[in-house]
C-alpha cells in the first residue's frame, strides 16, 4: 500500500470512478449517492457508475424543480435535490423499543439498531455543514442518540465540490460552501478527464492508497479551481446574516409573520427537506389484543398542529406562530441551543415549498422594516 500524505491532491481518471464504488462495496459498505428517480435526482443505493445521474442536471426556483439533460456526460453536474443524507443518519421511521406481555409481566426490548455501513458518495459542502449541525444535536449534547450514532460512526464520506449553483443556493451567505473544506474522508472535483481527489482523513487516506490515483497535474488543479469558482460566481441568492439572531427575536410581532401565514400551507415540506431539521415524535402502537406493543419514532414537524399539543390544546394554534417558530429557531435560537446557525444555505426549503415561500425574502422583509414594530424586549421572549 502506498503511503499517501494527507492533504495531497491526486487525480482519478474518469474511467476509474467505478473502482471507487467497487472498493467500497468490497469493504462491506452500502454505497449511497445521487440517482435519477421520480423526475428528480435523489439519494439511493449506488451499485455502479451506471446508477449515477450521468449527463443530467436540474433547474430550481421557488416551488419548482425540473430535471434536464446536460450537453456533456458529467456524473455530478447538478446541485442538491429533495433528499438529504439525514434520511440515512436520522431515518424517517425507527422502532426504538418493543414490548410483549408475558405471564411474568411486560418484556421490553430495544429496537433493532444494526444499520448497514454507509458510504455517502457526492456529499456537497452545504451537506457536510448540515451533517456537522446534526452531529451537535444528536452526538455532542448531554444525550447521545444511539440510532444516529450507530449510522454516523460507520459512515464513509466522499464529498463532491459543486461546479455550478442553483438559483436557490445561498451557501456563500451562510459560510458553508461551495468549497468542501472539512468533514469528509475524500473530496472530489469533477473535470472532463476525471476527478481531482483530496484526502481528508486517515480512513480516506487508506482508501485512496488502494485506488489507481496519479498525482494531479498543475493543469488539473487549475481547471478544478476554475470550475469551483464557477459555482461561486453563479450564486445569486443572498441572506444578510448580520445580527440575525437579535433581528428576528426582536421582531416577534412584526406584521410580516401574518403576511407569510397567509401564504404558508403549514404542510411541513420545508422542515422535511431541511437537512438539519430534527424534530420527531414518538408514539406507542399496540395490536388489538394489547399483548404486543412497539414504540416508534418518526419525523415530525413544528408546522403540525399536534406537535405543540400540551395539556388540552396546541400551544402554537395558528400558522403565523408555527412559521415564526420554525424561522426563529432555524436562524436565531439555534445559536443559543447549538452555537451554530440551523441553516446551511442549501435552498431546499425554497425549492420544495409548494407555494415557493423563500426564507431569504422573509428575512429581508423583516430587516427592511426592523424596529418599526419592535415590542419591548423581554428576556423571556427568547
Amino acid at each position: 500500500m502506498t503511503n499517501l500524505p494527507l492533504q495531497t491532491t491526486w487525480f482519478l481518471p474518469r474511467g476509474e470512478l467505478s473502482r471507487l464504488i467497487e472498493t467500497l462495496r468490497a469493504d462491506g459498505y452500502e454505497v449511497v449517492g445521487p440517482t435519477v428517480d421520480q423526475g428528480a435526482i435523489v439519494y439511493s443505493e449506488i451499485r455502479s457508475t451506471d446508477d449515477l445521474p450521468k449527463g443530467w442536471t436540474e433547474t430550481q426556483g421557488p416551488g419548482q424543480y425540473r430535471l434536464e439533460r446536460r450537453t456533456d456526460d458529467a456524473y455530478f453536474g447538478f446541485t442538491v435535490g429533495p433528499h438529504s443524507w439525514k434520511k440515512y443518519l436520522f431515518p424517517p421511521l425507527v422502532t426504538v423499543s418493543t414490548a410483549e406481555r408475558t405471564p411474568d409481566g411486560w418484556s421490553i426490548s430495544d429496537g433493532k439498531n444494526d444499520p448497514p455501513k454507509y458510504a455517502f458518495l457526492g456529499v456537497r459542502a452545504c451537506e457536510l455543514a448540515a451533517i456537522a449541525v446534526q452531529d451537535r444535536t444528536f452526538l455532542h449534547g448531554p444525550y447521545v442518540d444511539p440510532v444516529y450514532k450507530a449510522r454516523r460512526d460507520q459512515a464513509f464520506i466522499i464529498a463532491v465540490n459543486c461546479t455550478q449553483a442553483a438559483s436557490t443556493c445561498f451557501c456563500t451567505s451562510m459560510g458553508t460552501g461551495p468549497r468542501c473544506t472539512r468533514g469528509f474522508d475524500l473530496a472530489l472535483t469533477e473535470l472532463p478527464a476525471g476527478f481531482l481527489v483530496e484526502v481528508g482523513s486517515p480512513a480516506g487516506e487508506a482508501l485512496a492508497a488502494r485506488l489507481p490515483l496519479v498525482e494531479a497535474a498543475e493543469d488539473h488543479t487549475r481547471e478544478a479551481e476554475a470550475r469551483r469558482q464557477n459555482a461561486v460566481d453563479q450564486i445569486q441568492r443572498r441572506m444578510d446574516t448580520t445580527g440575525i439572531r437579535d433581528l428576528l427575536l426582536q421582531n416577534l410581532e412584526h406584521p410580516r409573520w401574518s403576511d407569510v401565514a397567509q401564504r404558508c400551507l403549514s404542510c411541513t415540506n420545508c422542515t422535511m427537506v431541511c437537512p438539519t431539521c430534527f424534530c420527531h415524535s414518538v408514539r406507542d402502537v399496540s395490536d388489538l389484543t394489547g399483548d404486543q406493543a412497539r414504540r416508534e419514532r418518526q419525523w415530525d414537524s413544528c408546522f403540525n398542529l399536534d406537535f405543540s399539543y400540551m395539556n388540552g390544546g396546541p400551544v402554537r394554534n395558528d400558522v403565523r406562530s408555527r412559521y415564526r417558530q420554525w424561522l426563529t429557531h432555524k436562524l436565531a435560537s439555534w445559536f443559543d441551543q447549538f452555537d451554530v446557525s440551523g441553516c446551511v444555505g442549501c435552498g431546499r426549503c425554497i425549492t420544495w415549498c409548494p407555494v415557493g415561500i423563500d426564507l431569504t425574502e422573509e428575512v429581508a422583509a423583516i430587516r427592511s422594516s426592523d424596529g418599526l414594530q419592535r415590542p419591548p424586549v423581554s428576556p423571556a421572549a427568547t
Partner: protein
Amino acid sequence: MSGKPRLAVFKFASCDGCQLSLLDAEDELLAIAGAVEIAYFLEASSRVLPGPYDVTLVEGSITTPHDAERIQEVRRQSKFLMTIGACATSGGIQALRNWASSEEYLRAVYARPEYIRTLSTSTAIADHVKVDFELRGCPINHHQLVEVLSSLIAGRTPRTPNHSVCLDCKRRGTVCVTVAQGIPCIGPVTHAGCGALCPHFDRGCYGCYGPAAQANPSSLNDWWMQHGHAPQQLVPLMRNFNGYAPSFRSESERLERMAATSHSSDQVGGNDK
C-alpha cells in the same frame, strides 16, 4: 368500557366501501370479532341485536327525511358514535347536489321521481347529531380503523394524525409531484391517512381524507392561478369526496366567484375590441 364492548355498524347514504374496509382487515378481523360483540352489522351478519351499543360506526351521509330521523335513534342507542369515511364526515361525493338542483337530478335519474323522497342536500352526520370521533377517508384506511378500535377497547384516546399528506410523502421518500413535475396536487392541504398513496404513483392527491387541520387551500390555489391555471379548472379539485367540508367548500365557492368575475371581465374586454 367493561366486558366485551358491543359494536354496531350503521349505513346511511354511501357506497359501503368503508364497511368493506373493516371486512378487508383480514389479518385483524378474527381478533376484532373476538374482542367485541358484533351486535349490528348488516354488511357482515344478518344477526341483529337491539341497542344500546358501546361503539357505533356510522357510514354515509344524510340525504333523506327518513335518515334524518333514523340517525337520531342511532345516536340515542350509542354510547360512543364514530363516523367512518368522507360521506359521514363531510357529506361525500353526493354532496355535489348541494350546489345543484336535486329536483333536476331526480327527473334525470328516476323514471317515476314522484316515488322518491329526498332532501335537497347531502350533509355530514355531525350536522345532525353529536359525533364523538371522525375517521376520515374515501374509503377509510383499515389500519387506522383497527388503531381506533384497539384504542377504544384498551381505553386510550384514539390517535389519527391530522397533518398534511406531504409529511407522509417525505417520510416515504416520494418526490413532490407538484414541484418536480408541475402536477396539481392537493396533498399540502389534505389530511393524512392514506400513507401518500397517489403521489407515490405519480399522481396528484385528490383529497380523499378531506382538509388537513387549519388547511390553507386559498394560498395553494392562488399559486396555481399565478402559474396558469384558471379558477374554473381548480373548482373540481376542491369539490371531490370532501367538497362540502367547510374549508374546501368555502374555497371552491371563492374560486367560482373568481371564475365568474374573470368571465365577465373577459366579456367586457371582448366588447372593447
